[in-house]
């Protein structure tokens, strides 16, 4: 499918296919609900699934991006997840990606350091978490006096021409990254971290759900207006 690079299948294909089919069947079972949120399963042929995300809050509604999943070797290995052009299915480069999935979080020293298992997020105060969840960026002004928040993109890359990856436990590119060797897939495998609906939900939350309108930038230009030239 598209420009996806085929991953060598080393798990019994029947096993991965059965698990892939379960992901697709469960998504389709709730397709009407997901469609209201702007999620559309455009294609599903093992091991790939293409979900198209649209901006449900804008008028007119617009397509934001496609998300291409590769469930090769699932669930011995997590799925690969790429943001792709929804029409060509080409993965976006870092300089092209329509959203970097910004996520607000307190800096490491904003909350007491507590040893936590891999995959566990340091908790925000409940009032702050609720305000952010419901108000998004607009809540910043209300909560800014309490905790200094910083936006960190869930999408990561090292250069403008790189294909960015989703820096999230449960995603193949995350677990294969040298920086994350201490957080292996096996720690997340049984928690459902690689489930299709879970990953779409997170991408939607930090992507299209944060978009509630359009910005138009107009650059005025002033030039001389010439009359009819003399003969």
């Amino acid at each position: 499918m598209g420009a996806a690079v085929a991953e060598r299948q080393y798990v019994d294909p029947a096993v991965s296919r059965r698990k892939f089919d379960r992901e697709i069947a469960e998504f389709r079972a709730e397709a009407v609900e997901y469609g209201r949120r702007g999620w559309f399963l455009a294609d599903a042929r093992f091991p790939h699934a293409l979900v198209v995300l649209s901006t449900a809050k804008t008028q007119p509604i617009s397509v934001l991006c496609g998300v291409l999943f590769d469930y090769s070797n699932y669930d011995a290995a997590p799925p690969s997840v790429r943001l792709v052009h929804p029409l060509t299915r080409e993965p976006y480069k870092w300089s092209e990606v329509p959203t970097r999935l910004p996520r607000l979080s307190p800096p490491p020293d904003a909350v007491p350091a507590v040893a936590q298992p891999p995959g566990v997020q340091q908790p925000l105060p409940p009032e702050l978490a609720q305000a952010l969840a419901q108000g998004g960026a607009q809540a910043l002004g209300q909560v800014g006096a309490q905790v200094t928040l910083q936006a960190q993109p869930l999408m990561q890359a090292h250069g403008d021409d790189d294909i960015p990856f989703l820096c999230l436990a449960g995603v193949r590119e995350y677990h294969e990254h040298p920086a994350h060797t201490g957080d292996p897939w096996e720690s997340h495998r049984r928690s459902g971290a690689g489930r299709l609906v879970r990953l779409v939900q997170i991408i939607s939350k930090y992507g299209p759900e944060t978009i509630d309108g359009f910005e138009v930038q107009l650059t005025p230009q002033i030039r001389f207006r010439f009359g009819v030239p003399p003969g």
Partner: protein
Amino acid sequence: MSDRDFGIDIVVNGKPEHLKVHIDQPMERYVKEALERSGNSGQPPEQWELRDATGRILDASKTVGQSGIKKGAKLFLNLKAGVGGGRG
């Protein structure tokens, strides 16, 4: 079954679970029940995010009634993002 007890569906990471709920009970009780039934014991309930059919995030500490949940409602429970971002 009174009108204060009714059935709802909680879709856990894509898989639906049917539960009987009471209007005065906190939703976190049913979040735990849905996770247990679906075999999702790897992460604590706090690491899951509950939404209604419109996508609105629900506060699981509130009761079924306070959350505006009606008979036959369909809710969605998904594992949160956890750590990630800015670490690549």
